């Protein structure tokens, strides 16, 4: 950096944040250079991944891929599209969020506004942190244990008393555990960022905690709530391990019965992540063009979610 060249001693000046780096100490300059270098490095890595995926994706993505069922075939041309995995991603995200969002919202509100008894609040907090830190494959294994129980046979395919334990229900239930910590953390953070006197202003006109939370606090924390939900969806649609283990990662939807919707949800299927996994050069199907096209779509979905998070966060309203 040019700041590194020695400069003639200058008259002592007032130092402020906007001062030029010429007056900085050596250690500060090295630190600054290091921080910049690391920042640029990570930016470059991210940009490389995104641009490479975009370039590859645009090359291989064709409109008919979106509307064609995948098929078993040896050539790229004969193996269909990714309609089923795309739908699978959407279904799984909806189902998992249907579980995780109300639960996460409730836990977040309880931790922030009630937290009583405090030992239970502390226990809940560490449980949530533990969930956040666990690899999803662990949830997947745990899920097989649960959903192979005879009592839960109605949630997956059952054959001669053998419960397969693989279904959209099973996968969504476990995927919701991945999204849960993100939702809880964001809801809680959003609520705790609201100054105490705002709560008290509501209590001070005779409102209960519930009324205050519903009418004042949650609307004020909406950007955080939306951010948490979006991040949760991002995690859900990006997860592979649970889909492979609990959804079967079958090429097409494989309904458990002929009942229209329920049959499909009780059956197996796949998502874009497992589709990419199996079509990657190291996967079972090995059709990299399909993998790149599906990966491109997945990346676009995640990027769109990130933009939505940014927009939601920027619309936040704050008290002084």
């Amino acid at each position, binding site marked *: 950096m040019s700041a590194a060249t020695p400069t003639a001693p200058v008259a002592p000046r007032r130092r402020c944040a906007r001062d030029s780096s010429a007056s900085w100490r050596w250690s500060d300059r090295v630190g600054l250079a290091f921080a910049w270098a690391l920042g640029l490095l990570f930016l470059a890595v991210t940009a490389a991944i995104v641009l490479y995926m975009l370039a590859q994706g645009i090359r291989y993505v064709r409109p008919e891929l979106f509307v064609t069922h995948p098929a078993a075939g040896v050539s790229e041309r004969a193996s269909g599209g990714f309609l089923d995995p795309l739908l699978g991603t959407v279904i799984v995200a909806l189902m998992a969020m249907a579980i995780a969002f109300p639960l996460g919202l409730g836990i977040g509100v309880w931790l922030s506004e009630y937290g009583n008894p405090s030992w239970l609040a502390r226990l809940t907090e560490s449980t949530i942190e533990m969930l956040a830190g666990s690899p999803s494959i662990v949830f997947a294994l745990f899920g097989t244990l649960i959903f192979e129980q005879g009592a839960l046979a109605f949630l997956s395919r059952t054959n001669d008393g053998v419960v397969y334990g693989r279904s959209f229900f099973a996968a969504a239930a476990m995927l919701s555990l991945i999204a849960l910590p993100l939702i809880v953390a964001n809801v809680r953070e959003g609520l705790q960022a609201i*100054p105490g*006197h*705002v709560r*008290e*202003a*509501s*209590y*001070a*006109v*005779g*409102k*209960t905690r*519930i*009324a205050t939370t*519903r*009418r*004042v606090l949650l*609307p*004020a924390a909406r950007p955080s709530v939306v951010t948490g939900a979006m991040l949760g969806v991002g995690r859900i649609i990006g997860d592979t391990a649970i889909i492979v283990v609990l959804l079967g990662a079958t090429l097409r939807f494989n309904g458990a019965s002929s009942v229209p919707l329920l049959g499909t949800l009780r059956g197996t299927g796949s998502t874009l992540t497992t589709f990419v996994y199996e079509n990657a050069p190291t996967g079972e199907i090995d059709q990299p063009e399909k993998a790149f096209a599906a990966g491109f779509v997945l990346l676009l979905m995640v990027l769109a979610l990130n933009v939505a998070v940014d927009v939601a966060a920027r619309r936040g*309203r704050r*008290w*002084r």
Partner: protein
Amino acid sequence: MSHTSPPPVRRLPLRGAEAQVVEPAEQPTLAMPGAGGAAAPRFVSAPRRRAGTAMLALDRMQVERLSIAYGSKLAVDDVSLPIRQGEVLALIGPSGCGKTTLLRSLNRLTELTKTASMKGRILLDGEDIATLEPTALRRRVTMVFQQPNPFPMSVFDNVAYVLREQASRRPRKAALQGAVRSALERAGLYGEVAADLSHPALRLSGGQQQRLCIARALAADPEVLLLDEPCSALDPQSTQVIEQLIVALREQVAVVIVTHNLQQAYRIADRVAFMYLGELVEHGPAEQVFGAPREARTREYVSGGFG
């Protein structure tokens, strides 16, 4: 603004003729032996906002031997104090002297602090407030805070929120127009926001936000209005507007105001209570507390000796 009648707050403007000026001759002399040389503060001869003493002063609340502690730290120590409608009561004292705690105990907001414990009792119209439902009590004794804190909704909804049952969205807007308007008028804000009541409240100016908070506190039609340093985050002009408002309100509600600003206490208060280290040191008419304090600590504080 021609289409609206002037809001009631404007009834008591600070005009030269109406403003009560304490004549030097009326001023009680400081004849305290061993007073330590403390003289009456300079502002004692300044004009006051009050246009004469209130016609009637009704006892609304009675604080009886109240002590409040946070854990083992005593914040309010054996305080007894009447609170009257028709008078503005100012609580003054240095930081941490317990005046805000005393104020918050009047509508049981201290209960929200887990470590707080309370002794003694507070009566509202003869009823012990500990026996009242907190939500019902807090509608009768409402509070305005130091920081303007309108809720993240429209101006209309901020006031309507108070009028509606808990979290309900009913009654609908049309049914509440009148009540919302009258609350905004009482707070002297209606003329400024009448054009767009659906304007987001957080985009109002600081002074307007604080008057909206007062409107909100008045919407519940309270008997006692508590104000915790309502002007400390505002500019002088907004402060003036709110001070006039407070003085005008005292006939309809009992007003208790905590303030750090002695001039403000002198300008608007009928009675002043000086607290120090949790104790109520002195309490009496503003002229007496500022002009001829009985206690040496009060004299030192009001003349700027400490705090």
